């Protein structure tokens, strides 16, 4: 039986030595530095790994697209390394619990330019807070084999008023809200070839977070959800879903039956409102106007026709940590 002995926060991440990479430069402690990653969750976790490995305390962890170097700041470009990312994932799960990593996963798809730094600070805080791992009173100690999820103890997520946690919770909440909006307001339409197609324009790249929900619920139909803002499509064809990165896409024509259904739905929507309770402010509060262009029944009131079709090829991408 292996007993968990995390005496040092490094140990949680450093169970094997890091191979020396000549590209990685040691920076003297105290010097302002920024870590730059490619924008993916794997990249972000690699950057966190890098910070621990090099004893860095960077003031910024930013995606390449959002980089704005400060005066005198040393920039480290951290290459994405799946192995390192997986080790950080394992470390977080072991030390803080799987729920904390789940929260990190959610927050990482946020569009906030500062999200890298927010997550980095939170992970630092969470790993430090839950160290050392005291199992003396844990009833699962005899059989947890060091793989304790710490589900039964409080996690760093509970320190909601702490300055390292509050922005993280806010980001997490904002992504969750966005995910919820998609679950509510996504509208499929049937196109030729027995395929169901939906467009959305969320504030965060939440397609990977909603695919499980939609594939479970609509497992009898092949469908595709396209995110116009992040140019990401989630595709389900009857087996596991996958993600596709694309700038344009080709959508077949709508079926005749589809137009009838849309007409029926729009009529239903108009009729169900009680005139004497008319309250458009309340409606807009629940259903933000920025989403209306992709909500079938609202398109008319915006006066915009549905988005025209475009044509291109689709290339599958891999996001291992966000995959099903």
């Amino acid at each position, binding site marked *: 039986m292996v007993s968990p002995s995390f005496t040092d926060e490094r140990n949680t991440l450093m169970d094997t030595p890091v191979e020396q990479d000549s590209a990685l430069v040691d920076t003297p402690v105290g010097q302002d530095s920024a870590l730059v990653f490619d924008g993916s969750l794997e990249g972000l976790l690699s950057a966190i790994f890098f910070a621990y490995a090099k004893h860095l305390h960077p003031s910024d962890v930013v995606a390449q697209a959002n980089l704005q170097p400060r005066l005198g700041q040393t920039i480290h470009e951290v290459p994405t390394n799946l192995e390192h990312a997986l080790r950080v994932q394992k470390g977080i799960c072991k030390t803080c619990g799987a729920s904390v990593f789940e929260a990190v996963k959610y927050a990482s798809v946020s569009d906030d330019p500062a999200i890298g730094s927010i997550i980095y600070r939170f992970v630092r805080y969470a790993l430090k807070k839950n160290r050392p791992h005291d199992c003396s009173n844990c009833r699962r100690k005899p059989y947890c084999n060091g793989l304790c999820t710490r589900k039964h103890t*409080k996690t760093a997520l*509970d*320190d*909601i*008023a*702490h300055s390292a946690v*509050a922005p993280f919770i806010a980001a997490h909440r904002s992504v969750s809200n966005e995910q919820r909006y998609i*679950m*509510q*307001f*996504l*509208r*499929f*339409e*049937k196109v030729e070839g027995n395929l*169901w197609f*939906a467009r959305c324009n969320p504030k965060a790249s939440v397609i990977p977070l909603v695919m499980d929900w939609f594939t*479970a*619920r*609509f*497992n*009898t*139909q092949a469908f595709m959800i396209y995110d116009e803002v992040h140019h990401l499509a989630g595709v389900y064809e009857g087996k596991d879903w996958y993600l596709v990165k694309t700038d344009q896409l080709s959508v077949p024509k709508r079926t005749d*039956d589809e137009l*009838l*259904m849309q*007409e*029926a*739905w729009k*009529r*239903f*929507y108009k*009729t*169900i*409102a*009680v*005139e*004497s*309770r*008319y*309250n*458009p*402010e*309340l*409606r807009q*509060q*629940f*259903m933000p106007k920025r989403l209306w262009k992709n*909500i*079938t*029944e609202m398109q008319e009131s915006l006066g915009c026709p549905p988005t025209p079709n475009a044509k291109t090829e689709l290339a599958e991408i891999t996001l291992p940590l966000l995959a099903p």
Partner: protein
Amino acid sequence: MDLVEKLEILTDAAKYDVACTSSGIDRAAQKGKLGSTIAAGICHSFAADGRCITLLKVLQTNVCVYDCVYCVNRCSNEIARAAFKPRELADLTIGFYRRNYIEGLFLSSGVIVSPDYTTELMVETLRILRVEYQFRGYIHAKAVPGTSPELLDTLGHLADRMSVNLELPSQKSLQYLAPEKNKHSIIAPMKQIKHGIAEDKDTRALMKRGNHYLYEKRPPKKDRAFVPAGQSTQIIIGASPESDYHILQLSASLYQNLALKRVFFSAYLPVNDDAKLPLTDAVQLNREHRLYQADWLLRFYEFDVNEIITPEHPFLDPDLDPKANWALNNLGCFPIEVNTAPLEMLIRVPGIGVRGAKLIMRARRTTTLREAELRKLGIAYKRARFFITCNGSYTGSGADFSREGLRAHLAAPIEGGKHGRRADRALPGQMSLFESSGTQTSRLFKNAQTPLFGAREPLFAAREKEAVLPQPPQKLPAPLNGAKPLKEPAGMALAGW
């Protein structure tokens, strides 16, 4: 008649039903079957009146043999009538569901031929959905009063939630405005549903694996649960003269005695022109709003109905929400220390809700909570500060710690948007509207001579209630800490009913 036209007629007839929730049951998706439900429910759209659209809310038919005075579908109204064929409606539901427009079906109906015939049509629709199409989404079915128990049982096994409309807050009003319905035809199905749910739960608990030593024989085919998401009801507010006190006592006893999940209130909207109905154009939306707030206190804040409203003040304060009102009446309990107070006291502080109180409980294990932290948690500090101390210091300065002093800070008229009936609302004269003389509204009811709405009576005025209001129940519901009565008290199962 084409489908779209038919849908329009039957939606128009169903829109006055308030309930449109898809909550109360978790049903995971299954491979090869369409649909799932989650207990929180999902709103798929919001209509122009701000109400959510989560279910396809339609009538099976709007043909009705009854002549309920307040109802748009009463048989003496000259409106277009239509009916869905069961398969037609089932196909439409599936079509909408696959497009993620809706969470399921809300099926109600006018009474065509007889209650049993109507229910058979509804059962057929649900059967096609559940059995033929293997639909796992949400279904809310409305029980038609007067249906035979066997049919109701079949319907309950196909639906997730059922509801029987109580329609009006007292028997007397019901008799007056809906003469074909009676107490028995409404209460009997409600009781049947309640007992059916309890029995079904017991049976399921007994059949669970491994809770006895006998040979286990699981039933060959799993039967559908009976109304797993519980039952709800709906009361029209303002078509009859009952007070808020009466209505809240009634809904509290409904929760307690009939184990209802929700009691919906619907402000009376004048859709018909009838001598028996109030002659008012002002919809009591604000009264409805306050009643809902009180209802929330009953269900989520563990308030007892007698704490919210008393017979001395039988109407809720239009300018102050019921929770703030309770706090002002019980200033002796405050201020409380936010870092040590128990959860049940925290949720009673105006400005701290259930979510806020739970966040405080979580956060204060590691942090001392002061103003900045509380604001970070999303507490309405502006309101809460008069009732709490943060780490020993009281921050509600600037206001006299008395009922009048704090009322000035907490009073908040309902912001109901700039449009519609609310814009030309009767407030602040909502209570006094009916007392004024010489104006058009001086005579509220055309038939001032009828015994129920006694002549020239200020119907909603607090002080002259005894003439029409039913007596408050002799036996008050059990207090907060008391155990719930196992059986309904004989004779007075429902306050006022």
